[in-house]
């Protein structure tokens, strides 16, 4: 039987490994969910805290990746709930500004940045489940993995993704037409 200190050491090693492996993806997710730049680090740590607490309960029933995304999305929704309970006014989602483009390819970078903004704005207009599905999809999860994270059937996911992708594509095109 393992002692408490052994379990703690193992949990610490697991968390460090998860941070090393998933830090960019988790940060993208936090960046997307948290409207207030000053609170992003706080949400990031909340997500890690959620993982830290859940590590001892992880039994490998699902893949580590789907388990991690479930926790991260659910903690982010919990933060939204906490904000509503504190009656904090919804802060409009600011776009994270990409570094200004300089030199060759500056125009391309600017165009890509604009397209990215249009896509993010389009995602933010979706309902929560749709938002989560598209974010998981964009993070490279398969439909089966999205099913495990979201609890929706693969058929429902396929239908929704098709609709969401068309909508986002449309939003990006509209933005380009207006320019």
């Amino acid at each position, binding site marked *: 039987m393992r002692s408490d200190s052994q379990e703690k050491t193992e949990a610490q090693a697991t968390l460090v490994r998860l941070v090393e492996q998933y830090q960019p993806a988790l940060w993208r997710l936090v960046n997307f969910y948290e409207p207030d730049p000053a609170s992003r680090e706080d949400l990031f740590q909340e997500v*890690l805290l959620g993982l830290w607490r859940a590590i001892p309960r992880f039994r490998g029933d699902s893949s580590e990746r789907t388990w991690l995304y479930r926790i991260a999305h659910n903690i982010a929704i919990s933060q939204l709930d906490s904000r509503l309970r504190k009656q904090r006014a919804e802060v409009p989602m600011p776009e994270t500004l990409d570094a200004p483009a300089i030199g060759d390819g500056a125009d391309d970078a600017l165009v890509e940045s604009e397209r990215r903004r249009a896509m993010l704005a389009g995602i933010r207009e979706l309902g929560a489940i749709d938002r989560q599905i598209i974010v998981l999809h964009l993070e490279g999860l398969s439909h089966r993995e999205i099913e495990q*994270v979201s609890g929706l059937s693969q058929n429902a996911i396929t239908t929704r993704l098709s609709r969401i992708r068309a909508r986002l594509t449309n939003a990006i095109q509209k933005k380009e037409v207006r320019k």
Partner: protein
Amino acid sequence: MTPESNELEKLWNSGPDAMRRDPQELLRKIEQRTRSFDRTILRRDLREAVAGVLVAGIFLAFAVYDHSWLERAAHLWLAACGVWVILHMRRYANAGRRPAPEESLKAYQDALLARYDRQIELLRRAKYWYVLPFWVGFLFSGAATAARTHNGIVFAAMAVFATLLSGAIWWLNEGVGVRYLLNTRAKLETAISS
């Protein structure tokens, strides 16, 4: 230009990455946060325990120095009410915790809404588990004192006091509290509905 099939993925991944933090440093922060959270829970538990002991202690002290068995019984009843309310709230707090974040997104969101429903139900029933026992206890205490002193005004004053206090608590729970929770629940439902 039309986004290609993997264009959305490309755009998604083209965003600025955060500065990569040292995992060991993050681990230290998480452990600090865990300790801070545990201390907060401990303080809350202590606060609740002290409140329960205080209410029960005050009425028990009254019971010790009471002049009649009826008054003693009334104050013992009020002491028991204090303990009962704290225990009931504690049991409810355990049942009303946030769901485990490993749940699927849909199940988790349903559970968050269900948690609001339980809290709303608790406040709606406050008149039974919170207000009524104390109201009865205060009336009982007033009646016991009036019987010993043969002074009906004592009973009338206690009845008015208990009714006004109970009414205020009932209104705070079922009026203000429930309205606030319904409003917040609706906002959450809107925010997470798809």
